[in-house]
């Protein structure tokens, strides 16, 4: 089998596999969205529970925080705990969707996409030339 034929076979296989992969990803994302995650402030006095979809389910402020901290400090701790829970929910959804880690920025994603497109174009070009050669024979 030539390189061109192998490339085409791989492309056909990828297309054939797509519905199954999509169904699996959808199932993983649904499970992650309905799972629960928690976030805490640095001192562990406030705990926020959220769904994987980022819906806040509960905000637990410990009796110690209510007793010892002023309203402004409690508010800052709640905000920190909520943001920790939201970040965790986002991360778990991204992992379920099979996305690259959060530090992979858009520019790198675009570059990766362009490289794949270049590789595809190169394969098509080689396939085209192989076919031309076959037709010339």
């Amino acid at each position: 089998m030539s390189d061109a034929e192998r490339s085409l076979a791989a492309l056909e296989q990828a297309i054939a596999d797509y519905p199954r992969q999509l169904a699996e990803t959808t199932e993983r994302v649904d499970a992650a969205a309905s799972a629960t995650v928690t976030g805490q402030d640095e001192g562990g006095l406030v705990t926020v529970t959220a769904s994987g979809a980022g819906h806040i389910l509960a905000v637990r402020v410990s009796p110690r925080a209510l007793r010892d901290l002023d309203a402004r400090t409690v508010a800052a701790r709640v905000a920190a705990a909520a943001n920790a829970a939201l970040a965790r929910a986002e991360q778990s959804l991204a992992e379920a969707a099979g996305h690259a880690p959060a530090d992979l920025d858009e520019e790198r994603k675009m570059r990766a996409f362009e490289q794949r497109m270049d590789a595809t174009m190169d394969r098509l070009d080689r396939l085209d030339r192989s076919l031309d050669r076959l037709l010339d024979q």
Partner: protein
Amino acid sequence: MSDFDELGNRLRAISEELAEVSARLQSTAEAAQGRDFRAADPDGRAEVVVDGRPRVVELNLRPDALRSGPEELDRLLTGLLNDGLTQARAATRQAMLEALPEQIRDEVAR
């Protein structure tokens, strides 16, 4: 022009269009993420500001909110946070939908 040349040209055009849509979505997402959304309880005991990412950027609590007890405080904060987060998500989603090509907007919105 062979079939493969034609296919190559089509793929190239799709690639360029995708790059353009991607740049537009990126800039729309950045603008949407920088917007603020505010939610407050009717009694003025608490107020939350959420940005478009969405993250809590500000939370104000009046001292008497702490005296209402842990369960009441939980209900108050859970409701307010979800109010702000829902506004932020809805606005970001709407902005992103509007940045999509018209042909696929309705399908994505479903």
